């Protein structure tokens, strides 16, 4: 059964507003309707759920939303994503798309890491989540094992951040092509440059913004690709 444009827009709005208003039930309902109506799952994710998260990022910058609202929005997004994900076609963007992510040894703070992970999930990346308090060598091993093109290191505390340059050096030594992103309160653009990391985000909200930027970019690529077809 195919649905008309009006119904499609209604479903996309429901997904988008479900995320913005952190309404898990609305997101689940919208996702079910999208699948039931034969909609493209990728479209429902990007033009529904991710569009909502983009607005959430804006509300956060405008200081209308704070950390609890962002977390509830993220939960609502996942409620929809869990239903849509199995119906997704693999996006062909010319990248294989896998990422190793974790919070470095000595650190148990993982809200920022989990938000970034969410955006990778949304973007269709294969995410190897090592969790928190991860021994430094584990990042290197996992990158080699999975041949991921991206490694994300997170730390909330200065004392655990000092392990980062060692990991970056080891990974770059074995695999210079691999991109590395560092994040967390004590990190900075200067440190990222000094240690040879390719990207950086200061905190959960910034990481989210960076990740949204990345996903928005992927979305643009996808739209351009669809136009060509």
């Amino acid at each position, binding site marked *: 059964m195919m649905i008309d444009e009006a119904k499609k827009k209604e479903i996309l709005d429901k997904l988008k507003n479900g995320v913005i208003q952190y309404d898990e039930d609305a997101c689940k309902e919208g996702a079910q309707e999208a699948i039931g109506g034969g909609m493209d799952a990728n479209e429902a994710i990007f033009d529904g759920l991710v569009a909502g998260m983009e607005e959430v990022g804006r509300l956060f910058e405008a200081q209308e939303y704070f*950390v609890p*609202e962002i977390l509830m929005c993220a939960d609502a997004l*996942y409620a929809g994503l869990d239903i849509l994900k199995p119906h997704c076609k693999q996006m062909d963007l010319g990248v294989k798309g896998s990422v190793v992510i974790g919070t470095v040894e000595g650190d148990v703070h993982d*809200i920022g890491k989990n938000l970034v992970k969410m955006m990778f999930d949304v973007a269709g990346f294969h995410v190897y989540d090592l969790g928190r308090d991860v021994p430094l060598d584990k990042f290197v091993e996992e990158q080699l094992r999975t041949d991921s093109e991206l490694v994300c290191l997170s730390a909330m505390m200065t004392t655990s951040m000092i392990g980062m340059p060692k990991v970056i050096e080891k990974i770059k030594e074995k695999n210079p092509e691999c991109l590395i992103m560092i994040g967390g309160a004590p990190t900075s653009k200067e440190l990222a440059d000094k240690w040879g990391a390719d990207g950086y985000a200061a905190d959960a909200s910034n990481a989210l913004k960076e990740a949204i930027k990345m996903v928005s970019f992927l979305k643009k690529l996808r739209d351009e690709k669809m136009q060509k077809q």
Partner: protein
Amino acid sequence: MMESGALKEYLKNEGATLIGVGDVTRALTGEIVHLNRGISIAVNKNLNTDTIGLLLKLQQLAVTWLRKKGFKALLIPPDSDRKVDKFISKLYRLVSHKAAATCSGLGWIGKNGLLINREYGSKLTWGTVLTDAPLETDRPVSESECGDCELCVKHCPSGALKGYLWSMGDPLKELVTYEKCRSLKEERTVLSGKPNCGLCSMICPYSRNGSCRTGSGVEN
């Protein structure tokens, strides 16, 4: 200030045993300090009903009520129903139901470390809803009303209770050696498969009052 009588009435009709509103600013950390009104909801523990289910339903109703009026609301579920795999669950431990209940004037923290209400003792299950709605607040309870009573301290099988009187002005005073309480529960889990102790709750004279009054099934 926003009148809070209507919300209280509504939740009572839906089955809440007690409900109070407090200014919880003092008990919050930076991430959530914008949600400085705590709505404390209690349901009387009853063996043959789904207490947790009812409490969650009441909290959800409060959230919907507030959000319809354009306010933010954050539901902190009862301690025994916390899904750890959610983003928002990271913030749950930043909020103490007991602190919210004292701020809302519904009781004090007893020598047994539990929230004690004058009428129901420590046999209530608590949930909290935080909001930025400027609801009028109830008068907080700031001092313990345990007095000289030491029944729970004397009867605790693990000797975990120190016998101190709680005061809102000294929230960091440790009333219970949780290590001792926990190890007893672990021991019992090994023996019987259940951690249940609860003696300090049962023996409290305020709790026994409550059980007489509500055990007969007559609500007043």
